[in-house]
């Protein structure tokens, strides 16, 4: 009896993460690959789950700020801002103007720092070694400034409900102006190194494209959405703090591929510098903290506040029962939503593209898992 043996090829199941240099933290992707092609991908999250939302219910409002520092640990100030604004809105507090300007300056600088980190790690994802060192050199200037202002390089805990912890140091304006010149030069250098590099272009253009409609369906926000051509920016569409007094562009791309997302973030850095410049000119003297009771007790009610984070639209839904601690805090994390179209983006691409796509949507696992 002759048996015909059927040669059958099966898909290789490749486990990428949670410890993998390209997953930016503890993210795990299970890839089914056929040769070098990705057939399917299954994302697994939750390795960094700390129960932040639940923890918020056991802390006083002032203490929650520290928990929000640890959500998106690349953009601490932006996270602090959103929770402070939520409590302020509930309490109807008017934040002093100087504090608002300080907040905006710090947030925009933090956006630059965050995008610089993206630039560097994206270079690494694409296999280039130098961008990350250039980016960190520039980011270091911002971190030093943050340290001078808040005493900490990360996890600042500097914003307060009703203002900021203390006034900025007397030479703040001078320092910011100095580093802005350096930053602009450094960013231009970064731009020249990577943006139009032929290999980088061929690695990123046309890869991981998503159209505007699908992006909206998946709930993408921030640079990932704007890369598809939707000019949605909370700073423009639902202005908070002093953004309505500032003049800046919202960079918009068209194809929604990896290169567009990358290019958009680089352009946003220039816009942020522009914003900081204006803030420094407009910033008035005055108090930096509203007159409040020592322990904040927002009235009974609920509120939703969102701000434009470097990664997108960060929302906080806050319910208060009138006590010193919130009844419920729900975070709408942009990184989590950015992860949603992962299957859509990765099916049919190459293994190497997976890394580039995951890098281009710029997630922070602290925010995805909370």
């Amino acid at each position, binding site marked *: 009896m002759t048996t015909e043996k059927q040669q059958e090829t099966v898909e*290789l*199941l*490749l*486990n990428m993460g949670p410890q*993998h*240099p*390209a997953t930016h933290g503890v993210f795990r992707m299970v890839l089914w690959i056929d040769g*070098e092609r990705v057939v399917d991908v299954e994302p697994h999250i939750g390795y960094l789950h700390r129960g932040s939302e639940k923890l918020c219910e056991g802390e006083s409002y002032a203490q929650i700020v520290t928990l929000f520092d640890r959500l998106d640990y690349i953009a601490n100030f932006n996270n602090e801002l959103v929770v402070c604004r939520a409590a302020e809105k509930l309490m109807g507090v008017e934040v002093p103007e100087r504090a608002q300007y300080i907040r905006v300056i710090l947030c925009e600088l933090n956006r630059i720092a965050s995008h610089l980190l993206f630039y560097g790690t994206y*270079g*690494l*994802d*694409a*296999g*280039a*070694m*130098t961008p990350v*060192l*250039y980016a960190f*050199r520039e980011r270091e200037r911002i971190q030093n400034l943050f340290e001078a202002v808040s005493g900490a390089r990360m996890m600042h805990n500097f914003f307060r409900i009703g203002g900021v912890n203390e006034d900025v140091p007397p030479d703040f304006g001078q320092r910011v102006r100095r580093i802005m010149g350096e930053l602009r030069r450094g960013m231009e250098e970064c731009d020249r*190194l*990577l*943006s*139009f*590099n*032929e*290999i*980088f*272009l*061929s*690695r990123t*253009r046309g890869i991981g494209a998503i159209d505007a409609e699908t992006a909206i369906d998946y709930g993408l926000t921030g640079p990932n959405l704007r890369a598809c051509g939707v*000019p949605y920016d909370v700073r*423009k569409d639902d202005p908070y703090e002093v953004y309505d007094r500032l*003049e*800046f*562009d*919202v*960079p*918009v*791309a*068209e194809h929604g591929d990896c*290169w*567009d997302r990358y*290019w*958009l973030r680089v*352009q946003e850095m220039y816009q942020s510098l522009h914003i900081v410049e204006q803030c420094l000119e407009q910033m008035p003297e005055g108090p930096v903290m509203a007159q409040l009771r020592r322990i904040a007790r927002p009235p009974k009610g609920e509120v939703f506040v969102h701000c434009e984070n470097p990664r997108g639209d960060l929302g906080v839904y806050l319910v208060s029962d009138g006590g010193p601690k919130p009844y419920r805090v729900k975070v709408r994390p942009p990184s989590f939503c950015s992860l949603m179209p992962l299957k859509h983006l990765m099916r049919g691409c*190459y*293994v*190497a*593209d*997976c*890394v580039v796509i995951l890098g281009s949507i710029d997630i922070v696992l602290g925010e995805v898992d909370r």
Partner: protein
Amino acid sequence: MIGREVALAAAGLVALFVGLSVVVLSLVWLERKFLGRLQGRIGPMRVGPFGLLQPVADAVKLILKEDVVPAWADKGLFWIAPILMFVPSFMVWVTIPFSRDLVIRNLDMGLFYFIAVSVVSVVGLVMAGWSSASKYAILGGLRSAAQLVSYEIPVIMAVLGVVMLAGSMNLLTVVDKQASVPYILVQPLGLAVFLIAGVAEVGRTPFDIYPAESEIVGGPFVEYSGAHWAIFFLAEYINTFVVALLVTLLFLGGWQWPHLPGVWAPVVVLVKTYLVVMVIFWFRATFPRLRIDQLMAFGWQVLIPLSFVNIVLTGIQLYYRWPSWSLSLMSLGIILAMAYWQYRTQTAPAQALARSYSQRAYSQRRGA
């Protein structure tokens, strides 16, 4: 008589081994320092003056480290693979000259020997990938097989161009023929093909597809540690050095330098080689990594045709006895045409796109 020969050969081999170790240590130090300077930092500074002893410390660390073998690994193959990679990179040195006299064994078919031996190392890589019993390693091993086999062809073709010019496969003759004009001026296209394919052969950026750190975390080497990993490392750096040395010998005129007595020959070769090595390091600091399909497409659709064109042009020039500058002009023309084509198809459209995006953002602000 025979005893003397054997003793000489043995002494040569020992000298070669010591020399190679020094070369590798110097390369590691140079790479770290040079990359550091390119990247706005200063590189190693702590161990020894200017961090000169850093590679030594690294080597000691690697040798003393526990050599872990994965439980499911094919133990035999796993042990042999590094050796299979290291031996060819060691063997090619037998015929590589540093001056007219400083060569272990000058072969008439030296270049042929070099190519034949250096191809073997791909077996070691595939073996390492397969025997590690790791999916990342298997991917890396298969990638290395595809990459090394396809980039071997342009290397051979580029070498053939030089052989046609020199009329010999003997490295001494090749260098001697460049006494007046180095072949870089005659065959810039051949140099470009050889350097690019050579960098791909040794798997360095932008062709580090099979060790791709950010994708398959080291490829075939992912399961290796300690001394075995060190052997891979050694082989990689020796191969890099060999590629640079061959560029020196084949295209940069070897030890030829005007108005310099013959004693300086090895120094001239080394200086030229280290300069070429620094160019390869410079690639590493500049370029991202290609994707595997782009790598294959580039190899088969660009490099191999170009290497054939190089050979045909060289043949025409030799047959019709045109002056040699005609070949340089044709080669340069092709290189420029390729660069322009690359610019037109890749860079220019992206720049136009970026400009249109900027204008859109600006007009949106005006409109609002």
